[in-house]
């Protein structure tokens, strides 16, 4: 009996060695499916991260319909607001939701269970991350569609590459930070207020909801240091008819890239501590 079991196990592991990478990628894809299913089924989380930005878009967008921004070459407000809200959504899902989700996995003991299964740690974390990134992209697509179709925002084919690159880089940046900060959240109950305290003021100074034309310059300098302002600025450039070329705003993208690099380092540290044993 024992001998047979051993033989079966050996055959299986050699089969896996042959199928190696394909097997692992299949496992990641499998996990992504279940992560997605769980995400959309949790109404509270889906509403908070997915429907919230959409609600802001519909409410504020309708309130200020027809307004124009004098300081920005008479740009329709909605062309400022749609990219702003996209930046906000990338932050809420990529940063806040990711941080909360990971803190929750740790708190509920799912990470502990995962470690006793043969699912490799890196594949599992990879699957969670991919799932969240997919959610961010879905949110961006919905916001764009609603912004263009219902609210009459204008996108230009010329600046679409800039829009896409900015969304991808911004998502990478905020998601890595979301994973990194999950470590600082002692328990899911206290997590939300802490994250709101970080993200809400940052949203206001980063000109996500409205432009800060008359604001003191030091406030703008503070906003420029953090990743949200470069993200919203680069996105807003893509919606601005005065933008030339592909809409790639070098300065903002550079800032985002630096933040992403820092985020990656911090993320690796958090991932190590999550899997650490004593």
């Amino acid at each position: 009996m024992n001998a047979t079991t051993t033989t079966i196990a050996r055959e299986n592991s050699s089969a896996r060695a042959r199928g190696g990478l394909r097997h692992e990628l299949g496992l990641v894809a499998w996990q992504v499916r279940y992560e997605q299913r769980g995400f959309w089924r949790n109404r509270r989380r889906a509403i908070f991260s997915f429907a919230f930005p959409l609600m802001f878009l519909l409410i504020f967008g309708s309130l200020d319909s027809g307004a124009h921004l004098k300081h920005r070459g008479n740009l329709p407000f909605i062309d400022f607001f749609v990219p702003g809200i996209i930046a906000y959504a990338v932050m809420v899902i990529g940063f806040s939701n990711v941080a909360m989700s990971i803190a929750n996995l740790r708190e509920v003991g799912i990470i502990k269970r995962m470690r006793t299964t043969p699912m490799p740690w890196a594949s599992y974390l990879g699957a969670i991350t991919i799932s969240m990134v997919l959610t961010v992209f879905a949110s961006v697509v919905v916001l764009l569609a609603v912004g263009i179709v219902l609210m009459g925002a204008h996108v230009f084919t010329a600046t679409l590459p800039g829009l896409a690159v900015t969304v991808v880089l911004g998502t990478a940046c905020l998601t890595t930070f979301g994973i990194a900060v999950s470590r600082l959240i002692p328990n899911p109950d206290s997590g939300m207020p802490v994250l709101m305290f970080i993200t809400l003021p940052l949203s206001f100074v980063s000109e996500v909801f409205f432009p800060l034309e008359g604001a003191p310059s030091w406030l703008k300098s503070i906003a420029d240091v953090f990743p949200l302002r470069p993200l919203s600025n680069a996105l807003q450039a893509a919606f601005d008819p005065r933008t030339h070329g592909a809409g790639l705003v070098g300065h903002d993208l550079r800032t985002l890239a630096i933040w992403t690099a820092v985020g990656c380092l911090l993320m690796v540290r958090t991932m190590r501590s999550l899997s650490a044993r004593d």
Partner: protein
Amino acid sequence: MSNAIEVNELRKRYEEIEAVRGIDFVVGTGEVFCMLGPNGAGKTTTTEILEGHRLASSGSVCVLGHDPARGERALRERIGVVLQSSGVQPDLTVSELIEMYGRYYPNRRSVKELIELVELEAKADTRAGLLSGGQRRRLDLALGLVGDPDLLFLDEPTTGFDPQARRHAWSTIRSLCSLGKTVFLTTHFMDEAQTLADRVVVMAGGQIVASGTPEEIGGREQLPTEIRFVLPDGVGLGDLPALAVDAQLTHERDGVLIKTQNGLAATHTLSGWALERGLTLRSFAVAQPTLEDVYLALTGTSEDEQPTPGSNHEEVSR
């Protein structure tokens, strides 16, 4: 046949305290091995080292031929772990979870078969977050078995169960043994150890204080038989007939306790004496000391500190 688990001189130090102080034991393949001990005895630490959650400070540990500290996938494919403190994705249903976790293992059991085994047929499409405590534990058991493990770790598997559910879980666990699986069980409950285990070790203060079969552990076979009854009004201890030389008479709260190695003869003498006089000895009972008595004597804890079955001490599943 090789052993499923071999532990030699295992020690685990946390900053201030030494939680496990040099223990040795062996679990044979196909055995139900039970680790008993009060909270803080070191059994959780020991179990977590065997599962690969913690690293040993010194000593050697071998699980199915692997060192669990290396966290090899080949080992994780062959063990199942049912922990009290590990959660599940609350928004997935029972059958989805079994399906999802099953995919990680090379040899997996079918979803339907496992749901039947833990009797969650009616809850197959219910989200894990909506299950009752007992149902959650049964799901945990199903997830522990999904990879058809050779070795199953069960951490207090019936805490928080009602008596019927406990009996049921026991029969499930016993049926695993008939399949040749090895089971490593930790529990607070004496009756659980007595019913399930082939072999028991008792831990206290980071050490193994006794080991053996549930029948023989702690010299239980040699302990005197206990006879208890209530004397009728007007009859004193002095009126009792002469019993064997070793018999010890004690006055308990509401009756008499006699301890003797010669239980059969003493019972005969006492019943003859009572019948002759037409006396009724209420609550007459003859018993061997229970595993619980032995355990209490070994671990030096009083009865009040011991949890009783069904009481929700510690963290019950969330």
